[in-house]
């Protein structure tokens, strides 16, 4: 069994290497215009954000709306590390991720006792509190933001971090710890009766997800060279949540597809930003009518193809980009 699983891991890594090579070639040869290069970058960031939020909202079944707050923590902490303490890039992004993880733990411990709507409101408020706190710290630029952050995030860094995120999340979901998180989503009372400390696993999922949001934030600030409070409003949390719901709660492939799709929509609507939210809302309404569980439901792309192939039917040929 373990050999089979390791084989899957190797296939996953090889596949990502191939995709990386293709994009790296397209980028270094300047076949992709700068517009598309930017979009590929944003897609990578969004995949990290969406797949990590999926661990909270999809796998553990807790409704969090504060992901942008943790992203802000990652962005600012890493920027402070590189600019004020002159730490190497890798140390800064790790510090950013760690800081967001620690904060996630501290905030998650009290708030995750809440359920459903109450948790959503608490996390929404928390995200805003983080943003407003940053807004009022003059040392990190306050309302004008931090600029002049060394732009050290390159495509290999981004892609590498994205693959690490997906790999870690995938293996967490398929482990004992992941099963415990799933059981919390399915039936918290039964989970407790089966010896699972539901609060601890909620906090665990929240902490891990916050950490990756911090990682995405760190990469974000070191790509654009600026960190500005307005980049981390609750609208961004909402964007990320839309990606997760669109792709399917509980499905990593779904989060990837959701992130790719919504990034493209956002890019296409760039000239009409005021209509973007209307399109999002319409998209969600259509989705709720025709595929209430999201594009993938809670299934993974690999398992969908595998089961179709086993049944002797044709696979539908859909392949997730960047998987």
């Amino acid at each position, binding site marked *: *069994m373990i050999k089979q699983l390791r084989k899957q891991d190797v296939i996953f890594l090889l596949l990502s290497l191939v995709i990386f090579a293709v994009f790296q070639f397209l980028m270094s040869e300047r076949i992709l215009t700068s517009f598309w290069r930017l979009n590929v970058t944003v897609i990578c960031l969004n995949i990290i954000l969406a797949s990590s939020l999926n661990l909270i909202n999809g796998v553990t079944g807790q409704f969090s709306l504060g992901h942008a707050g943790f992203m802000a923590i990652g962005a600012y902490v890493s920027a402070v590390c590189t600019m004020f303490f002159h730490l190497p890039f890798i140390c800064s992004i790790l510090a950013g991720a760690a800081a967001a993880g620690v904060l996630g733990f501290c905030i998650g411990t009290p708030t995750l006792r809440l359920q459903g709507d109450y948790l959503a409101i608490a996390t929404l408020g928390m995200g805003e509190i983080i943003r407003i706190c940053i807004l009022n710290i003059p040392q990190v630029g306050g309302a004008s933001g931090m600029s002049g952050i060394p732009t050290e995030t390159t495509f290999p860094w981004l892609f590498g971090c994205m693959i690490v995120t997906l790999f870690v999340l995938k293996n*967490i979901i398929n*482990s*004992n710890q992941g099963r*415990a998180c799933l059981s919390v989503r*399915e039936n918290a*009372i*039964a989970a407790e009766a*089966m010896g*699972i400390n539901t609060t601890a696993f909620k906090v665990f999922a929240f902490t891990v997800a916050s950490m990756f949001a911090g990682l995405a934030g760190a990469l974000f600030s070191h790509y654009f060279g600026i960190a500005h409070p307005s980049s981390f409003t609750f609208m961004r949390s909402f964007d990320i949540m839309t990606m997760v719901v669109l792709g399917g709660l509980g499905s990593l492939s779904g989060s990837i597809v959701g992130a790719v799709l919504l990034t493209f929509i956002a890019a296409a609507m760039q000239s009409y930003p005021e209509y973007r939210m209307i399109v999002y809302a319409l998209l969600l309404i259509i989705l709720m009518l025709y595929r209430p569980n999201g594009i993938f439901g809670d299934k993974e792309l690999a398992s969908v193809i595998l089961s179709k192939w086993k049944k002797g039917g044709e696979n539908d040929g859909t392949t997730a980009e960047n998987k």
Partner: protein
Amino acid sequence: MEPLLKTSNLSKSFGGIKAVQDFNVYINSGELVGLIGPNGAGKTTAFNLLTGVYTPTTGNIEFNGHSLVGMKPYKITKQGIARTFQNIRLFDHLTVIDNVKIAYNYHIKYTLAEAILRVGRYGSEEEVVEKKAMELLEIFNLADKKDELAANLPYGQQRRLEIARALAAQPKLLLLDEPAAGMNPQETHELMEMISWIRKTFDLTILLIEHDMSLVMGICERIYVLEFGKILAQGIPDEIKSNTEVIKAYLGEEV
């Protein structure tokens, strides 16, 4: 010999309603005890007190020498009490085998790092869990349904899966809340045989709530009768059958 489970003056009130009052029971190791009573007598509340879902208003629960009062449900499970639910509570959107695997959760020792890198104890422990879960599913005739979603199983199989899942937690004391609810006489009979069998095989102590008198009288060694939250009578099945108080509680008084 000290009983495995002993409650003393256990009470639970919800506002002015005394759901359970002065609940004094003991269960010796290896016994199969029944808890019966009319609807609303407080049987499930008693179960919820024993498993930590509710905290008792007063009284004490002693299990295996430890007091369980104030303990969280998951800790009580770790002490060795597992249960099923009156209204089935499976992990509906997970596969049958995952439902069982989850109950092994606290027996698995590998760390998160080992799981992420799939090294060390991850492989061996996952294999053991898979094997144990399959063994249980085979006992309960669910092995061929292992990849089915729990929600898609027919009712009788869901009941069986819930018992299998409870056994996977490797309890000393198993609490069954109306295991035969909604079953036909044939299924109830099979269930009776299965309960006796798992009790011997897994060396279990069982406390069960049941309305089906043929099942209770057929397999229980001792019976407690609960009415209006109080213990009305206790004894071996024959005593209970002829107890006038019990007959009155179930059938009403003669005019």
